[in-house]
């Protein structure tokens, strides 16, 4: 199974244009922010000291969530490619079996998602460190890594559910384009959730990725928020709600509540992703007793 995970990684990283395209969603978010959005959002928060850094951290949190979604989808394209050619049949004539094959695809895509989030983080942190003097603590990096892992697993599982319905590479590339551009909006990564109409806010709250973005932002921003608002809690909460640092479900969710939601989503999505595979595996005729 390790060999198959390695295969997924090799095939993903050797396809350079595929790597770049899978980062497109994240790059759009990053560049759009730098070129257009940073100034206009910041203008609204002139009164808040250090709002530049806070917005940088906000952007990183959302962009990492997007990166996880788009790169794991790119990693999972191998399932469709293998199914469309006879590679899947070729692999299933070995001793690996359907379950392990499925798990290896999911593990490979998760690993790709984790690595690409780490790379995006280094790029964004490097830029904001030089440009705005942004810093992170070791603890923040540790927690972020854990959330990256969670995001990678969750995004993989959700994408895998969708991929089960995709039969051809041509439809998958259209899907990837839609996900790449849509993910930024759906996780509230491009535009602050609080500025959107009610329906859009509901849509974002139904997207598991926005809870990942929220967790990322809490890890990155909490200290800075406490400093900046210095005990003015109602103002801080307003800011958190507006930017989606914490998601509002009849009151702002705590970090623990947000984490619980993510874990439940992860479990449900994993079951939904794997069960159809197991059923189709059972249907496969066992020739060699």
């Amino acid at each position, binding site marked *: 199974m390790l060999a198959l995970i390695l*295969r997924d990684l090799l095939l993903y990283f050797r396809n350079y244009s595929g790597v770049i395209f899978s980062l497109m969603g994240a790059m759009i978010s990053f560049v759009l922010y730098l070129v257009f959005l940073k100034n206009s959002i910041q203008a609204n928060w002139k009164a808040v000291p250090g709002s530049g850094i806070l917005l940088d951290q906000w952007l990183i949190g959302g962009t990492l969530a997007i990166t996880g979604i788009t790169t794991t989808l790119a990693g999972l394209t191998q399932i469709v490619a293998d199914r469309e050619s006879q590679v899947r049949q070729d692999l299933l004539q070995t001793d690996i079996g359907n379950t392990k094959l499925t798990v290896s695809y999911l593990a490979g895509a998760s690993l790709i998602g984790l690595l690409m989030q780490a790379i995006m983080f280094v790029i964004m942190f490097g830029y904001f460190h030089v440009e705005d003097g942004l810093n992170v603590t070791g603890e923040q990096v540790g927690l972020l890594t854990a959330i990256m892992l969670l995001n990678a697993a969750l995004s993989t599982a959700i994408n895998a559910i969708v991929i089960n319905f995709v039969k051809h590479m041509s439809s998958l590339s259209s899907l990837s384009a839609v996900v790449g551009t849509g993910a930024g909006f759906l996780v509230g990564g491009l535009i602050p959730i609080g500025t959107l109409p009610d329906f859009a806010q509901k849509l974002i709250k139904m997207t598991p990725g926005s809870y990942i973005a929220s967790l990322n932002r809490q890890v990155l921003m909490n200290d800075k928020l406490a400093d900046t608002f210095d005990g003015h809690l109602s103002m801080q909460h307003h800011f958190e709600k507006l930017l989606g640092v914490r998601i509002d479900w009849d009151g702002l969710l705590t970090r623990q509540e947000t984490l619980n939601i993510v874990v439940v989503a992860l479990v449900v999505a994993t079951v939904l992703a794997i069960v159809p595979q197991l059923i189709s595996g059972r249907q496969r005729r066992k020739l060699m007793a």
Partner: protein
Amino acid sequence: MLLTTKKLTKAYGSHVVVNGLDLDVERGSFTAILGPNGAGKSTTMSMLTGNLRPSSGTITYASGTKIGIVFQASVLDGNLSVRENLVIRAKQYKHVEPDKIDQLIEQLGLTAFTTQRYQTLSGGQKRRVDIARALLNAPDILYLDEPTTGLDIQTRHAIWALLHNLQTQHQLTIVLTTHYLDEADSADSVFVIDHGHVIAHGNAASIKAAYAPDQLRITPANTEQLSSRLRSGTFKVDNGDFIFELRTAQAALKILTDNQDLIQNFQFHPGTMDDAFIALTGEEVR
């Protein structure tokens, strides 16, 4: 028998692709499944290899039979090297001898390009790697679905020689589908199938004997005399030539010697698999 099928059938709705196929494959034999496009060859192959469930009928292997498959389209990864491809596939089997990959690289002549990416190889090189991959688990029976389609004649001969070598030196049972008739010529056992039926079975010689008579074309020196000497109905006349369809070369020799004085010229065509194939499956293009 290593493999027996009884009344193997595959139907999609009312469309019957394979219709009550009875096949026997002997251990160590070289079997060719021959048929025009759409005859049901690939469907049959998919059922034999367990990738497609038959609608009805049975497939029985001798117990413990291991199978290897060379698919019609390539199933290895273009962006991985030859060795990476083989190592990754080998790891999916529980029991592959540690030096198996090196053995196969040597045996199939892949040494010169093991570090090259699969997608950069020529058609013939790719095919050899595909065959190496199919042999990783030391199969008892190797299936090849149109292994030489799209290859040049030299490469086809090389692949063919390789397969024969595997059969004779390593007692490998080989089953392949093809629509190249010359390939069926050297098989131990040929099943000609069309519309999902076996329409002829035997070795190439027996099929040719049954369905592709030898042809003798005589240009007479004296048409009337020769015509009166021969029994009418045993020949056709075409452009003034007399054409005989005969079972054996001996029969042709007898006609030629008996009528030597009346013959100006002659041509003799032994029956070919092409003739048998056309006789069996018709001229129509599908």
